[in-house]
C-alpha cells in the first residue's frame, strides 16, 4: 500500500473525534472574501460587484443587499526533509531513519490534505528539488517517493542550511514549514536561517534519532555510512556513558536553541508508531495558538 494512503488511514482513525488538525479555524478566515461558502448579507455599498447582489433578498427588503462569502485561504504545508545517505542509516536495530522521516512527512501531508491545503516537498542533496505545492494526494505521494529515492546509502549528503534557504524563498505566503531532519547540531548558521523562517512561517521540527551504537543488546555489527568502514564491537561501559552523555548534551543544546526561536519540536521514538507522535506535536502547536 502506498505510504501516504496508509498514513492517511491512520491519521483519519486517530483524528476522527478529537481534532481536525491545525487547519481547523486557522484559515476559516474572519475576512469575508470570495468563495462558494456563503457568509452573510449586507447593504450594497458603492464599488461592490454587481454580480454579488442578492436580488431576491433585495426585493424582499426593498434595498440592495449583497452576499458576502467566506474568504477561502488555503494554507501551504512545506515539508523540508533532510535526505542523503545519513537518512539511509538506522534509527534503531529494526528501523531505518528514512522510513521514520517519510512516515512523519506523510503524517503532516495527510493532515494538510484532509483540509484541502497545499503540500509541497523540498529536499536538497546535490541540487535542490522542490515541487510545486499541490493538494492532490497522488502528487504528494510522488513527491514522497522522490524523497525516498534520494535517501539511499549512495545519495549525496544533505545540505540542511541550503534546504532552509530554499524553504524561506519557495513560498511567499505564510504557511507551515515542517522540518524533518536527523540528529543535527543547531549551530549559528542554522539558527539564523530558522529565525528567518520563523518570522515568515509556522515552523515545526521533527528529529529522527540515530541508533545507539553502544547498546549491549545490539546483535549486529555497525558500519559508518559516511566512509563505509566497520565499527568495532563496542562493549565498553565508559564509552557507552560518554556516548549517551554526548547525545543528551546535543539534544539539550538543540532544544534550547529551538525554544529560543519558539519552535515546537519532537524527537521520534524509533520503535513506536510515528503518527501519534506527530499528531501530539501538532496538537501542542494548536494549544499554544
Amino acid at each position, binding site marked *: 500500500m502506498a505510504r501516504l494512503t496508509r498514513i492517511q488511514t491512520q491519521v483519519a482513525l486517530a483524528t476522527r473525534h478529537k481534532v481536525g488538525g491545525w487547519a481547523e479555524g486557522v484559515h476559516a478566515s474572519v475576512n469575508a472574501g470570495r468563495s462558494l461558502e456563503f457568509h452573510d448579507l449586507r447593504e450594497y455599498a458603492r464599488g461592490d460587484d454587481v454580480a454579488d447582489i442578492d436580488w431576491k433578498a433585495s426585493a424582499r427588503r426593498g434595498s440592495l443587499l449583497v452576499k458576502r462569502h467566506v474568504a477561502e485561504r488555503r494554507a501551504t504545508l512545506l515539508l523540508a526533509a533532510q535526505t542523503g545517505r545519513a537518512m539511509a542509516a538506522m534509527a534503531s536495530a529494526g528501523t531505518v531513519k528514512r522510513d521514520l522521516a517519510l512516515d512523519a512527512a506523510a503524517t503532516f501531508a495527510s493532515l494538510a490534505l484532509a483540509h484541502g491545503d497545499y503540500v509541497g516537498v523540498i529536499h536538497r542533496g546535490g541540487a535542490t528539488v522542490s515541487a510545486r505545492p499541490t493538494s492532490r494526494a497522488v502528487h504528494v505521494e510522488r513527491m514522497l517517493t522522490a524523497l525516498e529515492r534520494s535517501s539511499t546509502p549512495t545519495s549525496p549528503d544533505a545540505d540542511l542550511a541550503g534546504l532552509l534557504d530554499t524553504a524561506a524563498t519557495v513560498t511567499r505566503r505564510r504557511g507551515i514549514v515542517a522540518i524533518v531532519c536527523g540528529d543535527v547540531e543547531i549551530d549559528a548558521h542554522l539558527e539564523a536561517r530558522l529565525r528567518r523562517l520563523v518570522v515568515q512561517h509556522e515552523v515545526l521540527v521533527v528529529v529522527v534519532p540515530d541508533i545507539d551504537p553502544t547498546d549491549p543488546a545490539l546483535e549486529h555489527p555497525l*558500519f559508518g555510512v559516511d566512509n563505509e568502514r*566497520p565499527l568495532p564491537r563496542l562493549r565498553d561501559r565508559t564509552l557507552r556513558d560518554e556516548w549517551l552523555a*554526548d547525545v543528551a548534551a546535543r539534544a539539550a543544546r538543540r532544544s534550547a536553541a529551538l525554544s529560543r526561536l519558539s519552535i515546537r519540536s519532537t524527537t521520534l521514538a524509533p520503535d513506536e508508531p510515528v503518527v501519534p507522535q506527530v499528531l501530539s506535536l501538532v496538537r501542542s502547536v494548536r494549544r499554544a495558538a
Partner: protein
Amino acid sequence: MALTQPWWGALVLLVLTAVAVIAVLWRRRPRVPGGALPFAAAARLRSLPRFRALARRRLRWAVVEATALAVAAAGVSMLVARPVDVDAQSAQRSNRDVVLCMDVSGSMQRVVRDVLGAFGELAGHLEGERLALVLFDSAAVTGFPLTDDASFVREQLASEAREMTGRRVPGTGLGDVGSSLIGDGLVSCLQRFDGDPDRSRTVVLATDNQTSGRSLYSLDEAAAMAADDGVLVFGITPNDNTVTATHELTEQVRLTGGDTLLLDPNMPLGDIVEAVEATQRRELEGPARLEAEDLLWPGVGLTMVGVVGAAFARRRGMA
C-alpha cells in the same frame, strides 16, 4: 650452535617477510561484514575521547601482535634451518693420552704431594683425555692405567696423595740396582701407552733428575726413544733442584718437543695443556668426527612465545 640448513631458514624467513610486506601493501579496506547496520553518526562516535583511547589501545595491541608474529616467524625459520649443537671437542680430546710419571725416590719424598697436586690440577685442565699414573723409583708401578674416567682419576690422585706418608711406595724398589732410575722410569712410562697410532701421546715426568744406580736406559736413550715414538715429554722439577740436573733434563725433554717447569704453586700448567692440545691438532686432521645434536628448543621456544603472544595480544586487542 650451528645451522644445518641456513639457506632453507633464510628462504622461509624471506618468504614470510615477503608475505607480510605484501599483506601490508595490499591491505584492503576493512570489509563491512554481512548483516552490518549502517550508522550515521560514526564520525561523532569516533571523536569521543574514550573511543580514541580504545582505538589507541587496540593499535598498541596490534603492534604487540605483529611483533609476536615476527618472533614466531623467526622461530619457524630457525626450526627450518635446523640448528644443531656440534660437540666435536670432547671427541677430539678423547684421542689424547697423557701419562703422569712421578719419581718417588727418597730425594723426591718432600715434593711428591705437591707433584700429585700439580697432576690433579693438570687433570682438571685436561678434560676428556685418557690419563695414567706411573710411580717409579728403581722400578715402575702403575698407579692407574690409561682411563678417561675423570672422577676416577681425581679419586686416585687424591688417594695416592693420602698414601704418600714418607715410606717407599711398595713395588718401586726392586733389588739393589739403585734408586731413582730416571731413564728406566721414563721408558716404563712410554710403555704404558697402548700403541694406538691415532692417539697423541704425552708424558709428564716429575723428577729431580738425580740418578743413583745402574740404569738400563740412560736419560738420553729414553728421550731418544720418546722422540722416535712421537711422545711429547714434559718435565716437572722441584724448584730447589740443582741447576745442572734441571738443565740436563730440560735439554733432553726439549728433544721431544716438551719443556721443563719448576714445581711451584703458580706453575704455568697452561703451557702443558696448550702443548697437549697442539699435539692433538697435529695428530688428528683426518677423522675429525662431528657429533651434531638437534637443537630444537630455541626454535620451538621462539615459535611458541610468538604464537601465544600473538593470540594473547589479539584477545586483549578485541576486548
